């Protein structure tokens, strides 16, 4: 059995709609409407869906930035929503979030050093006061930024660099789970790849589990081990990356996949296109029965009445969870396995470095961008200040990025 680190059970988050002179509650927006799933240790769970499906609200509820209307989240054996303020604060060391917009999620009046050190202010026991600057510099280096830029302000960085700062803040306390809400969608194509590669590298090194919320199905396929598809506050299909992309059984997943353009003109006109009609209904007044029936190409009368459960249903090879009464597998994306295909390193690189520094003032790479590795050799005189004894997922010795000094 897989090692579950976070388990959400029947989560609901309804927002009241106030109306009339007396501002009475006249209805509810059912943003998250009965969502259950589990996250395994060390894996990436992708959450996809179109705008308004409740995926971002789900992320905020999991962080307890929003109180759920009902439901439970069990985090590493602890019931999160029954915790009081102080224990909750301690718990947040282990579950952190990275936001979508690198332009608004960083305080413009604080230096990067202060922004990344803020988690240490709240959890002073993690790193003693004297060691914080060093800890921040290590974090900057881990995310591929120049540690000397610690006193710069957010506006002095590009979008990609700012997102790295957000990630550095997110991993400062060495959390077990990092919730990433559209972390790359505001970035240009070439920069997006840099940040995705960084996130994968950090996951390997720190043993992080990710909940990766995004609308881009190609990015989610690339980064996720398992994927959940959301529609109008519900999870409609949940399975491994292979199950969702190669044998989806829910008509909504199938339609979504068929709508994603593929960067290959030879596929033009050859791919099956399932065109959905109409718009997503309002979450304040979701359709009866199956929520997707108003737009579904397979809908029968039963679908207007019966609300299908998210349960294991056959997918042609085995079975995985799908919330459709008429679930059946359909190949939408012809997948090529390119695991063994090497990319051509003459044009692009998989290394994680501060790419953005290339474009610094002179337009040329500053000489010290790569010299940071040497400097950090002398940094680590204590037993890794960030390494909490309780954290079984801390960096391992000889970790290239930790750059521990040689120990005799």
């Amino acid at each position, binding site marked *: 059995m897989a090692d579950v680190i976070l388990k959400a059970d029947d989560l609901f988050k309804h927002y009241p709609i106030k109306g009339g002179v007396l501002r009475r509650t006249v209805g509810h927006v059912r943003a998250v409407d009965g969502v259950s799933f589990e996250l395994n240790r060390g894996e990436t769970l992708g959450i996809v869906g*179109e705008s308004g499906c409740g995926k971002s609200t789900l992320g905020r509820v999991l962080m307890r930035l929003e109180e759920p209307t009902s439901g439970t989240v069990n985090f590493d054996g602890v019931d999160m929503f029954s915790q009081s303020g102080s224990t909750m604060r301690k718990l947040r060391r282990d579950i952190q979030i990275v936001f979508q917009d690198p332009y608004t999620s960083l305080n413009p009046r604080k230096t990067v050093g202060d922004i990344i050190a803020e988690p240490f202010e709240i959890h002073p026991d993690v790193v003693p006061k004297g060691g914080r600057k060093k800890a921040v510099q290590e974090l900057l280096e881990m995310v591929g930024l120049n540690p000397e830029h610690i006193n710069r302000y957010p506006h002095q960085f590009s979008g990609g660099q700012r997102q790295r700062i957000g990630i550095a803040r997110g991993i400062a306390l060495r959390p077990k789970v990092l919730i990433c809400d559209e972390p790359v969608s505001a970035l*240009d*194509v*070439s*920069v*997006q*790849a*840099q940040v995705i*590669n960084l996130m994968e590298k950090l996951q390997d090194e720190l043993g992080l589990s990710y909940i990766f919320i995004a*609308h881009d*199905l*190609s990015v989610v*396929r*690339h*980064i996720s081990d398992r994927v959940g598809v959301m529609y109008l506050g519900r999870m409609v299909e949940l399975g491994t*990356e*292979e199950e969702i*992309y190669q044998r989806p059984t829910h008509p909504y997943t199938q339609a*979504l996949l*068929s*709508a*994603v*353009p*593929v*960067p*290959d*003109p*030879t596929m*033009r006109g050859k791919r099956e*296109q399932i*065109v*959905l009609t*109409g*718009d997503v209904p309002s979450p304040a007044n979701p359709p009866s029965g199956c929520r997707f029936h108003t737009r579904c190409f397979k809908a029968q009368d039963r679908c207007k009445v019966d609300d299908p459960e998210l349960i294991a249903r056959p997918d042609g090879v085995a079975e995985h969870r799908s919330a459709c009464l008429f679930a059946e597998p359909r190949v939408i*994306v*012809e*997948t*090529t*396995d*390119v*695991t063994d*295909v*090497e*990319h*051509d*390193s*003459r*044009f*692009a*690189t*998989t290394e994680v*470095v501060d*790419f*953005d*520094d*290339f*474009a610094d*003032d002179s*337009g*040329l790479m500053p000489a010290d961008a790569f010299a940071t590795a040497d400097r950090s050799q002398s940094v680590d005189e204590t037993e890794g200040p960030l390494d909490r004894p309780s954290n079984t997922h801390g960096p391992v010795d000889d970790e290239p990025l930790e750059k521990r000094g040689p120990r005799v």
Partner: protein
Amino acid sequence: MTTTTTSSAPVSDYKPDADGRLLEVDDLHVEFHTQEGVAKAINGVSFDLHQGETLAILGESGSGKSVTAQAVMGILDMPPAVIPSGAIRYCGQDLLTMPEEQRRKMRGPEISMIFQDALSSLNPTFPVGWQIGEMFRQHRGMNKSDAYAQAVRLMERVAIPAAKERVKQYPHQFSGGMRQRIMIAMAIALDPAVLIADEPTTALDVTVQAQIMALLAELQEERQMGLILITHDLGVVADVADRAAVMYAGRIVAKAGIDDLYARPAHPYTRGLLESIPRLDQKGQTLAAIGGLPPNLTRIPAGCAFNPRCRMAQDVCRTDVPALRDVGQQKSACHFAEEVLNG
């Protein structure tokens, strides 16, 4: 209903040349004079567009793709923008030397544009039907009720359900996809020969994006418009474009037929971009990234603007600006284009 428009539509004074060429942009330069200095947004861009063809202009933010579109449309704010040299010829006539009044009359009936953000491009204080009808009132001198009738016809054409009832509604009462349809209705109202779509689906969900792109393709086919699609999305381009021009730091660095662009890229930037996008139809893909960022346009590197990020760069790349030249069936602005193409 359709007959009324065709009969009332004035015959265009503009005719494409014998090859069906509508638009010809020739060595266009655009600068922005800012406090930080002169930002060279476009540095010698040339391309042409034929009837019924879709040309994609691909690029990341700051590459100059939107400025190119705005220059062609004639909606650049001048100042701060300055066009020091170049020509934009529409059916043989240079738009840049034309009197503004003549050019204004062309916006809509000849060249028309769809913007990325429909919500901020539509006026929130007028009903959508009024805004679509404005095209007919301004350019054709139609009265209010005829213009409304035309608006309904166009809303039906772009598949907005219950057009008759919704014609008097305001932009905020429509979803994002429906607002983009309204933008398209306005853009095609006067049957333009050239349609420029600037990131028309970037703000939309994938299922809606598919609907909008299908609608655009259908309208183009029906009216044989020349379509310029400005985008950063390599997936969308692969789906709809006939040819593509890749822009970097205000220049076109590669120009190719759509199959060549993807299968045989001849510029390191195009190669790098293709390596850096995750693909829906691939499993176990290694993502590689192009290092660095596009340059600040006030300080474009000497030589090839891409050289600081290029892993193939040699000394010559730091001194000599590579010209856009023929390489096989395509064009590339790289000193080592043959190596990139064949390697």
